């Protein structure tokens, strides 16, 4: 099982080949966006964090920015800083540079405002995008894929068809020597005992239970029933009644592989196989966390039709709901409602998803990329804005 990807200097493989224009703080988003909009081959990463937060969160934002910059789908990186933010620009540069890729910076307060920062950044970005365009795809093993698992806008069909089918595809990738990352800790609540039992040892099992306790305590601290927030209004309309029910369907997307390790948000796994990463279920935060953890591909099962994509990691949409497939054809990549209709088996649908993953990894565009629905991004923080 092979695909064609971009082999980077540090051995990691990209499924896309962009120059990333990464804002280091919420206050630099405008400049990063303007630079990217003027240079073909670049993508912006914008977010709402990076200043006036607790040191715990500043440290997390710094590490996530490093992780994003290191993602092998980026050939090079231009960091856009305001100049007075809490995130330390030098640390981000250093962390990304270790991969061997080119990293440049533009600091708005130093160059004298946004117009000058754009004027300085555009030629740099042009040069980096031109260099990146010379790189060619080469044959890589399926084991070079780091898959992010996600489900969203779930309904009853998610737990019955699209998530189990994605689970089969994830198991196939794990068997082929690849990595698969399961997040969405909120959607372990009520199903965590099943995940913990799949932990490769006691420490992993306990780690899973602890992540869930932390997430549930955060939700409970607000003092209300979380229903309506999780499960969402849309989940409820789709027939899901409680978070326990949603979770039992959500974890099906991780298949049956053993769970090798548990990681904090945005941390790159050290081993192959299926691992867990702490994150909430909301799209901008988990897609960003998966990208920061090094995912070069994301597969996203949906019931009612979630359109979200990410700037530089392709997101494949899978639905098991025929109505969603018919209505949202420009957002859905794969239809597995055939399982419910009795015209396809679950294993066959899983194999079809795996084949699509290999094709998308080799350059086939996802629907989200084609329609430009690729701005679902933000960094998950745990403390208050202060």
């Amino acid at each position: 099982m092979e695909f064609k990807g971009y082999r980077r200097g540090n051995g990691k493989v990209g499924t896309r080949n962009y120059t990333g224009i990464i804002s280091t703080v919420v206050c630099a988003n405008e400049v990063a966006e303007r630079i990217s909009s003027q240079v073909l081959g670049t993508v912006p990463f914008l977010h709402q964090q990076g200043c006036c937060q607790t040191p715990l969160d500043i440290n997390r934002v710094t590490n996530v920015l490093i992780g994003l910059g290191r993602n092998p789908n980026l050939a090079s990186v231009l960091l856009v800083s305001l100049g007075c933010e809490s995130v330390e620009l030098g640390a981000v540069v250093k962390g990304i540079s270790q991969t061997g890729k080119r990293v440049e910076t533009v600091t708005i307060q130093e160059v004298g405002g946004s117009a000058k920062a754009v004027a300085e950044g555009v030629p740099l970005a042009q040069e980096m995008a031109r260099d990146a365009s010379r790189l060619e795809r080469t044959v890589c093993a399926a084991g070079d894929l780091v898959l992010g698992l996600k489900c969203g806008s779930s309904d009853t069909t998610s737990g019955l068809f699209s998530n189990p089918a994605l689970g089969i595809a994830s198991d196939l990738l794990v068997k082929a020597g690849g990595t698969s990352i399961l997040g969405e800790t909120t959607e372990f609540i009520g199903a965590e005992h099943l995940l913990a039992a799949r932990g490769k040892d006691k420490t992993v099992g306990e780690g899973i239970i602890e992540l869930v306790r932390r997430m549930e305590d955060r939700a409970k601290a607000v003092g209300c029933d979380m229903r309506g927030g999780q499960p969402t209004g849309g989940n409820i309309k789709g027939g899901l009644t409680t978070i326990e029910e949603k979770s039992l369907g959500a974890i099906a997307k991780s298949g049956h592989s053993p769970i090798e390790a548990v990681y904090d948000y945005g941390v790159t796994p050290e081993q192959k196989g299926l691992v867990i990463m702490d994150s909430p279920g909301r799209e901008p935060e988990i897609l960003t966390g998966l990208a920061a953890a090094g995912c070069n591909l994301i597969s996203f099962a949906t019931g009612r039709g979630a359109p979200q994509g990410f700037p530089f990691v392709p997101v494949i949409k899978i639905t098991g709901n025929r109505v969603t497939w018919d209505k949202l054809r420009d957002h859905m990549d794969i239809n597995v409602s055939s399982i419910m209709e009795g015209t396809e088996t679950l294993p066959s649908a899983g194999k079809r998803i795996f084949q699509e993953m290999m094709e998308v990894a080799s350059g086939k565009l996802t629907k989200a990329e084609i329609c430009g629905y690729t701005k679902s991004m933000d960094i998950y923080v745990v403390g208050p804005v202060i």
Partner: protein
Amino acid sequence: MKIDAILIHDKDNVAVALRDIHKDEEIVIGKEDGCFRMEVSEAIPFGHKFAVRYLGKDETVIKYGEVIGRTTVAIPLGAHAHIHNIESLRGRGDLKDN
């Protein structure tokens, strides 16, 4: 046989409608080792659940063979089972003892 609803696990006390089901309709429910017929007592929208036996108040609701919540009122056989008669046991910041 074409099924109208599915009982995912033998232990489950709710089944899932695979199409919009009308009030008082007799339907075929598929399960692991075959299927059975029953009449629903209310309209059940596609993807929603209904009770496959009488459920008393405060009874545990089972789907996928696992606990998904607890009834807040009794749910008659064939009735729609959703947020109006089932509560979650998790993430309940509104309950002091939780």
